[in-house]
C-alpha cells in the first residue's frame, strides 16, 4: 500500500480520526502550558476559592483559588510525560529482550527472560509503586519507574511472540546463509516486521500509563504538590465534593477523554496496520 493510500484509509477510519483529535487536543494543551496558561498555577487566591465555572474561570477554581483550566493544562504535561517515559522504558528494555529471547529460542537466556517476566507480572504496577515509595519516598520519578517496569514484560512477550514465527521464514534463512549474525538479523529483518504491533501496543500502554499515573497520584504515590496532576486534583476534590463538584468533574473528564482518545486511536491503528483485519 502506498503512503498516499494509507493516509486516505487513515482519514476514513472514524476511530482513528476521533481518537487522534482527542489525544491531540490534550497534547496541544500540554505544549501550550509550557509557555502560557490562563492563570499562574502556583499562585494562591483564597478570596476567589471554590468558584463555579464562569467567564473569568472557565472551569472554576479550587480550594486554594487556583484556576482549574490552567491546572488541567499543566496536569496534561505531567500525565503525558510520565506515560511517554514509562512506555519508553518498557519498549527500550522489553523489545531487545524479546528479540534476544526469540533469536535464542529455548536457550537459558530465553527461559530466564520469560521467567523474570512472569515475576514482574506477579507484582501489579501499584505494588511495585508501593515498594519503591516505601523505600525511596513518593515522587514522579518513582511513579515513572513503577509504571515503566511493568511495561517491560508486556513488550518483551509481544516482541518474542511476534518474532518467533518470523525466524522460520525463508528470507531469514537466506540472511543467515549470507553470513548475518542473530543481532543483525534481529535489527534488520525481525524488528521492521514487528514495528506495527509495537506501535499499536505502545498506544495501549500509553493510555494505561495515563490511568496508572492518575491512580498513583490520587493515592499520593505520584507527583507531589505543588506540581498539578489530574490524580492529585481528584484527591483534593474528594472532601469538597458536596460543595464544589466541579473540582471533581474537569480532571476526571480530562483523564477519561485522553484515555478514550488513545484507545480509539489504538483500535484505528490496529485496523489500519493489520492487513488481515483490513482486508476482511
Amino acid at each position, binding site marked *: 500500500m502506498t503512503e498516499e493510500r494509507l493516509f486516505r484509509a487513515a482519514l476514513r477510519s472514524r476511530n482513528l480520526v476521533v481518537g487522534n483529535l482527542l489525544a491531540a487536543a490534550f497534547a496541544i494543551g500540554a505544549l501550550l502550558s509550557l509557555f502560557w496558561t490562563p492563570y499562574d498555577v502556583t499562585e494562591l487566591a483564597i478570596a476567589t476559592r471554590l468558584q463555579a465555572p464562569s467567564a473569568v474561570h472557565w472551569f472554576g477554581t479550587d480550594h486554594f483559588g487556583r484556576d482549574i483550566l490552567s491546572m488541567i493544562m499543566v496536569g496534561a504535561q505531567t500525565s503525558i510525560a510520565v506515560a511517554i517515559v514509562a512506555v519508553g522504558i518498557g519498549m527500550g528494555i522489553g523489545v531487545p529482550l524479546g528479540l534476544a529471547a526469540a533469536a535464542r529460542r529455548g536457550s537459558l537466556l530465553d527461559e530466564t527472560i520469560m521467567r523474570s517476566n512472569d*515475576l514482574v*507480572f*506477579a507484582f501489579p504496577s501499584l505494588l511495585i509503586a508501593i515498594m519503591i515509595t516505601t*523505600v525511596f519516598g513518593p515522587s514522579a520519578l518513582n511513579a515513572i519507574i513503577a509504571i515503566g517496569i511493568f511495561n517491560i514484560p508486556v513488550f518483551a512477550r509481544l516482541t518474542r511472540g511476534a518474532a518467533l514465527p518470523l525466524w522460520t521464514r525463508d528470507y531469514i534463512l537466506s540472511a543467515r546463509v549470507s553470513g548475518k549474525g542473530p543481532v543483525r538479523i534481529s535489527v534488520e529483518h525481525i524488528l521492521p516486521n514487528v514495528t506495527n504491533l509495537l506501535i499499536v501496543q505502545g498506544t495501549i500502554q500509553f493510555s494505561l500509563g495515563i490511568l496508572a499515573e492518575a491512580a498513583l497520584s490520587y493515592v499520593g504515590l505520584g507527583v507531589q504538590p505543588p506540581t498539578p496532576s489530574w*490524580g492529585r486534583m481528584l484527591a483534593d476534590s474528594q472532601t469538597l*465534593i458536596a460543595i464544589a463538584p466541579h473540582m471533581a468533574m474537569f480532571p476526571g473528564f480530562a483523564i*477519561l477523554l485522553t484515555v478514550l482518545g488513545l484507545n480509539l486511536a489504538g483500535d484505528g491503528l490496529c485496523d489500519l496496520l493489520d492487513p488481515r483485519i483490513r482486508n476482511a
Partner: protein
Amino acid sequence: MLRYTVKRLGSLLASLVVASLVIFACIEVVPGDPASFMLGINAQPDTVAALREELGLNRAPHERYIAWVGGLVTGDFGTSYTYRSPVSEIVVERLAISLPLAIYALSLTILVAFPVGILAATRRGSLTDISVMATTQLGVAIPNFWFALLMVLVFAVNLRWFSAGGFPGWDAGIPAAVKALTLPAIALALPQASILARVMRSSLLDTLSEDYIRTARAKGLTGRQALRKHALRNALIPVLTIIGLQFSFLLAGAIIIENVFFLPGLGRLVFQAISQRDLIVVESVVMILVFAVIIVNFLVDLAYAWVDPRLRSRT
C-alpha cells in the same frame, strides 16, 4: 496432566522464592537501616538500638531472610511496630473486608459481562451491539476511582441511598455490610466488566463462525440451540483465562478503591503503614498480595490445561 501440574508447581515455587527475595531486598536497601528508617531522624541512639534488637537486625541478612520466610510459612508475620500487635492478626481482620469486596466485584463483573457480551455477539452490527461497544469503550477508559467519586456524589450526597464511606463491620449484620461494599464493588467491577464483555463478544463471534457451528445448524439445530450446545462452551475458554487475571487486578485495584470509601481493608492498611514507616506491615502485605496473584495465575493455568488438553503437551 499430573506431569504438567508438577512442572507448573515447580515454577510456582520458584516464583514465590524469587518474589520473596525481591521484597526482602527492597526493605534491606532502605536508607540507613530499617530501624533508624522506621523511627525517623530524631530518634535516640538507644531507642534505635532497642528496635534493632527487636527486629533482629544484628543478625546476618541471610539468617533474617530465612527467619522471615519461615515465619510466613508458619503464619507468623512478625509484630507491627505501630500497632504493637501481630501482623497476621491485623491482616486477617483487614482481609475480612478486602476479600469479600474482590469476590463481590468479580461476581458483578461476570453477572453483567456474560449476558451483555452474548447479546452483543448474537446481534452483531445491531443498535444493541453498537451501544454495547460504545459503553464498554467508555467503561475501559474511565478511571475507576473517579467513577467511585461520581457515585458518591449521586448516591450518597444527593440521593442519600448509601453512606459516602466507612464500614459498619460484619457484626452489624450481613445486609448492612454488603450495602457498605456495594458502591465500592460497582466501581471496581465497571472497567473489568467492560473488558470481559468485549472478550466474551469477540470470543463468541470467533466460535460462531467455525465450521462445526454451520454443521450443527445444517443438522437442524436452531441458532439458539447451536449457541447453547456448541458455541458458548468453546467461547468460554479465553473468557475463563481473563477472569483469572482479573481477580488479581481486582485485589490490587481494591487498594485504591478502599481509599475512596475509607474502607479499613488491606489497601488502607498499606497506605497507613507507608506513612508510619511500618516496614514489617508493608513487607508482609505486599508478599501476601503477590502470593495471591501467583496462586490465582497458577490455578488459571491448571484450569486452562484441563479444559484445553492441547496446552499440556505444548508446554
